[in-house]
């Protein structure tokens, strides 16, 4: 418990840095073109998503291969409600998060009974089942054409979300709130016990903890946060298709977490930024862009096992080797 006492969110020097970062993110729209702004919005949304997966991979030690399911299901919920005439942001937000959380609790009761590679395979299987459902249930989901034409939501505030700058600020507020909340979570007694499960499940059981319940709580929390990302995403792009539920999407989020640095919360956000921006930059110069992404992944595996953040932290600390929290 010594650790939690030491980490005070409002400690002075860190306060300064946090304030600076927040200020930069707040001022960015003034000095960036609209394409850069849309890319930054996307990075923040995927940052929220990657952070939520980090709760599972980095802190709980569960490599879940269907994280896109919760993201996509919440996005579909929002899209379908939009088609039913729901325009209010807060209602669809609540519904999206509720549906993905409920789904996570149901799935979690089944998939959390396995672990290791079996857990990975069974989550992949469930993810693909939901993907197939979205593809085939044409009357509800529009099949592979998806649900197009979802317009920006009504917040009940005198600000139009059609304006990309206001939408960016909406995403930024949720991004900072998520970062704060997840930060608090991983340093709460509950969050620490979840890390305990990752370190040694049997020891935690011996200490009298209900490890299944802890894992289920982490699973549901991660799903709820990715549900939030899903709602923001569908309003950002204005459409949703089964692609967002496919395993390739889940794989992409896992890459964001691993490249950025699992178990660091901030690392996955960097991972999301690097992957999305490189994808957009390289692919405008060459069709062979997956080759360059592949080289980056290999380099990360060879030289930055703890992710980009872990690598730089090592440099900061003068080359002292630290065990990666996610490894």
């Amino acid at each position, binding site marked *: 418990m010594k650790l939690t006492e030491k*980490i005070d969110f409002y400690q002075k020097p860190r306060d300064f840095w946090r304030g600076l970062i927040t200020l930069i993110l707040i001022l960015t729209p003034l000095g*960036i073109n609209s*394409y850069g702004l849309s890319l930054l919005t996307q990075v923040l949304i995927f940052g929220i998503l990657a952070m939520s997966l980090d709760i599972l991979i980095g802190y709980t030690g569960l490599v879940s291969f269907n994280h896109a399911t919760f993201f996509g299901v919440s996005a579909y919920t929002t899209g379908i409600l939009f088609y039913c005439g729901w325009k209010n942001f807060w209602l669809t937000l609540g519904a999206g998060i509720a549906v993905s959380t409920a789904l996570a609790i149901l799935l979690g009761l089944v998939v959390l009974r396995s672990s290791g590679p079996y857990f990975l395979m069974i989550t992949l299987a469930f993810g693909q089942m939901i993907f197939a459902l979205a593809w085939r249930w044409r009357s509800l989901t529009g099949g592979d054409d998806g649900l197009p034409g979802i317009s920006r939501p009504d917040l009940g505030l005198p600000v139009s979300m059609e304006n990309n700058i206001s939408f960016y600020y909406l995403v930024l507020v949720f991004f900072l709130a998520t970062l704060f909340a997840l930060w608090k979570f991983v340093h709460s007694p509950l969050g620490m016990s979840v890390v305990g499960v990752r370190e040694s499940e049997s020891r935690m059981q011996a200490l009298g903890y209900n490890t299944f319940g802890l894992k289920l709580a982490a699973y549901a929390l991660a799903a709820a946060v990715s549900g939030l990302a899903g709602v923001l995403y569908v309003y950002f792009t204005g459409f949703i298709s089964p692609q967002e539920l496919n395993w390739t999407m889940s794989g992409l989020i896992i890459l964001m977490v691993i490249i950025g640095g699992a178990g660091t919360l901030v690392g996955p956000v960097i991972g999301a*930024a690097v992957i999305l921006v490189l994808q957009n930059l390289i692919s405008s110069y060459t069709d062979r862009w997956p080759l360059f992404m592949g080289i980056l992944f290999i380099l990360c595996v060879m030289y930055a096992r703890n992710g980009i953040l872990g690598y730089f932290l090592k440099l900061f600390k003068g080359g002292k080797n630290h065990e990666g929290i996610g490894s």
Partner: protein
Amino acid sequence: MLPYFREGRFLKAGALAATVLLAVTLFAGCGSNYQSNTGTAKPVKVGLLVPYTGVFASCGENITRGAELYLDQVGWQAAGREIRLLKKDTEMNGQVGLQKARRLVESDRADILTGIVSSTVAYALRDYVVSKEIPLILANAGAADLTREKGSPYIFRVSFANGQYEYPEGIYAYDKLNFRKIVVMAPDYAAGHEKANGFMAGFKAAGGEIVQEIYPGLGTSDYGPFLTRIKDADAVWAHFSGNDSIAFVKQYDEYGLKGTIPLLTSGDCVDESSLPAQGDAAVGIISALHYSAALDTRENREFVSAYTDKYGEEPNMFAEQGYVAAKLIVTALEAVNGDLTDTDRLMSEIKRVEFTAPRGPFKFDPRTQNVIFNTYIRRVEKKDGKIINSVIETIPDTSDQWTPAR
């Protein structure tokens, strides 16, 4: 236990995170943002969005080749302005396509967008191009709604609406081929259903009966379980494309069905790029399409020989669609004298464009902004050792007028 969160480290981590995040985004945002306002004739920028990776990469490649062939022929300029083709890979993914379109429009300042193989990507882009007031010339995506309920003055289509050539094929099958009972097969995805619905609507309107519908999954490699289920009928109509069409046509022959039940298909199923692999198994198949490389007109002969000279293979429907899209853009640019300041005027000129394309007469239906073309009924034949789609009947002026009951 939590090494990265120990005293003092999070601040460095956070600072680093923000620096990297901002550096990359600013770099991306500003990288190609400069625009020269000097010089009287700035180049016209045409954004070409097609898949260059994934299963439909060859469609994207063929569309690009067709468009580049035409632009070569006119020296990459129209009305004295240089034309620049900005090619972007959509990966057949709506999210990626939308992001690339954003980059083209907001960062590269593209004036016109074209390409689009997949309807998913077209739907994803639809609201965006309308809100940004950028004309979008669809060069393949076939979802009929894109030029119906979801149509817009900014959206034009030079290729086809799903069902547009299948509907007259249904009528032809009843009237001229005297089929009364038909089994329908198509892959189980949106375009497969739309195309099958088009054929069935035409066939039923003429008085025919659909006795069975079979929808295997997209990307099926073994059609055996589906072929053995086929009921007794006068003919089978099928739509498959790409690798699916090769597997299907060969297996239809291998299962001995070719000799017993005649096979009708969509034109996509016996595309010029698939015919060499399908070989003799394809001979005798009757299909409908708005194009055939074997079409015997002056425009098509010239197109085929120029294309074959440049790329060493015969053009197919996608190459022709790319060629037509490029020609449409150049013709419209000439009509407005290269002045793109008035988008409404540009669009009304695009709408008015008519010319003789390799496929025959090309024009838009002014109500939907979808193309009107000749539907060609073709039979696969072997001539001088080469397998071709011979045109056996021309159904002129086919528009996307029929609307299925919803």
